[in-house]
């Protein structure tokens, strides 16, 4: 079949050091992947096109890039599907949120740096066992998904927080952190969770689910971040804005069945005695007040709230 690809090119050393799109028309087999098409372009049409790949089987994680605006493994994406989705030329761009070195190749240094920051190795206390560390099968099962991460960076590419804040650890590193926090053999949880509770850690995720959708391996990074939040709160790290927000939100639903939008920000920010934080809320509150948009001061309970409260008691008892 005849297909056309619109590839984002960039060469800092060229006479034209600005990114631009280049159209390539080629013939490929119906079964071809986007990677097959790119390799064909490189080999038969334009030897200057630069990309990373190795296994061509969605194992090595080298070929993550954006196809039609969404991160994917090029070797795991059929050209036919991409053409259908694009309704024309398939748009191929380098992965997002990482600096482009050339064409479709991005700099993975910050990616590896963040993975290293979460100390992705087993840290045990006590004397070393004579042979291997043993863990019960059922305690390791919940880690099977996260261990299938191939470090391709698709999740990082499409993370909406990294787009505005490069300081965020990001979905890949946080999923890796969960892999060790959740490991029954690891004894460094207190320190790990304390670090993850800091600025740039688990609470900075917006829950936008871009990483869940982008991951080619079903790692569910966001789900792992949520699990880390839960573990952090369980371990007593309850003093962050995020933990207080989750706490106040849950309390409000337990109390009235719904969210108390007037008190939620106050509680999340550490209560009315946290004066600097409270002052920051003032301009927004005033503007809303002037427009008559302030939430009701008297927060009424839903009728039949005792039924909701009973569910809270029953379910929370099970933990």
């Amino acid at each position, binding site marked *: 079949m005849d297909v056309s690809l619109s590839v984002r090119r960039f060469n800092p050393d060229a006479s034209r050091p600005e990114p631009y799109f280049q159209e390539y028309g080629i013939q490929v087999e119906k079964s071809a992947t986007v990677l097959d098409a790119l390799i064909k372009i490189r080999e038969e049409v334009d030897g200057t096109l630069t990309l990373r790949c190795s296994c061509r089987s969605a194992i090595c994680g080298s070929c993550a890039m954006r196809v039609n605006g969404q991160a994917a493994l090029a070797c795991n994406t059929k050209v036919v599907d991409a053409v259908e989705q694009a309704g024309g030329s398939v748009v191929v761009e380098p992965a997002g949120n990482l600096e482009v070195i050339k064409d479709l190749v991005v700099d993975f240094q910050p990616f590896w740096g963040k993975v290293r920051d979460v100390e992705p190795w087993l840290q045990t206390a006590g004397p070393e066992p004579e042979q291997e560390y043993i863990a019960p099968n059922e305690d390791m099962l919940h880690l099977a998904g996260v261990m299938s991460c191939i470090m391709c960076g698709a999740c990082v590419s499409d993370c909406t927080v990294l787009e505005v804040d490069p300081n965020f650890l990001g979905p890949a590193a946080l999923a890796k952190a969960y892999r060790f926090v959740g490991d029954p053999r690891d004894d460094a949880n207190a320190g790990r969770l304390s670090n993850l509770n800091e600025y740039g850690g688990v609470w900075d995720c917006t829950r936008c689910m871009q990483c869940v959708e982008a991951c080619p391996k079903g790692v569910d990074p966001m789900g792992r971040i949520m699990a880390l939040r839960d573990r952090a709160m369980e371990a007593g790290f309850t003093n962050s804005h995020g933990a207080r927000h989750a706490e106040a939100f849950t309390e409000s639903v337990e109390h009235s069945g719904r*969210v108390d939008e007037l008190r*939620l920000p106050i509680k*999340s920010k550490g209560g009315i005695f946290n004066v600097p934080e409270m002052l920051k809320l003032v301009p927004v509150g005033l503007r809303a007040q002037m427009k008559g948009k302030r939430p009701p001061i008297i927060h009424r309970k*839903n*009728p039949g709230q005792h*039924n909701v409260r009973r*569910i809270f008691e029953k379910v929370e008892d099970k933990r």
Partner: protein
Amino acid sequence: MKYAFYPGCVSRGAAPELFAATVEACAKLGIELDFEPMKTASCTGSGVLQEKNQRLGDTLNARTFALAERSGLPLLTICSTCQGVMSQANQRLKSDPGYLAEVNADLSEEGLEYGGNADPRHLLWVLVEDLGLDKLKSMVVRPMTGFRVAPFYGCYLVRPSSALDLDEKPERRDSLERVIEAVGAQVVDFPGKTLCCGFPILMINETNAVKMVANHTTDAKSRGADAMVTPCPLCHLNLDGYQPQASSMHAQPIDLPILHLPQMLGLALGIDPKAMRLNKHIVSTEKLLSEVAISA
């Protein structure tokens, strides 16, 4: 067309204009809203309560679904987040009968049982799937010709695609664009339309949340948008309420009015802008309304 109406916390709290506009627009469209069945329903948990306890969130939503089943009416939502959280809970409950039975055990004291048949639908989907775009078009009395509108879905209405049945119902993927066209306006496409508005981290990392507002609103504006429309009141709270802060990150005011979906419908259906509280937004809609020759 009658629905068990689930208004959500925000339309009864910080975004009363959404509630007003929904009631007005649905009345015009012949979408009957029954308030009774959901009277005692709780918050969905919004994904926040789920951070602490997902089982608790699923039980609360199962209760809401059971209430809807008891009424025999389909469940209608007007918030992307409510819809998404419900769809995710429903997916977990429906796919695991053992789990559903355990959750039902906690509902039994109230005499409720979720049979697994609820199908919560956002108003946006109801317009496309139940009412039909042709019907909607035929009801437009004040076509918004020459009016350029950027869509903004809200994360929970686009991801995860499996919980939202986007593969089975692909028309959901561009439903907002189709509705913008149906009311006679022109779609301003931009990559941010399915990304995050930043609201969930507003209380946690305001700088990042406001940067997201700035990026999306300036991008849409630079592509020629006169306004942005969203089916999510949380996106609205951030994109509208924090636009002044976002503007201060830039040299000049962004000044992009943000409309709730039912407000846009209402304008095209000839409803008085004041009845939909379009004068209550943080970013003024006055200029916009005068430009489309609708006086506020």
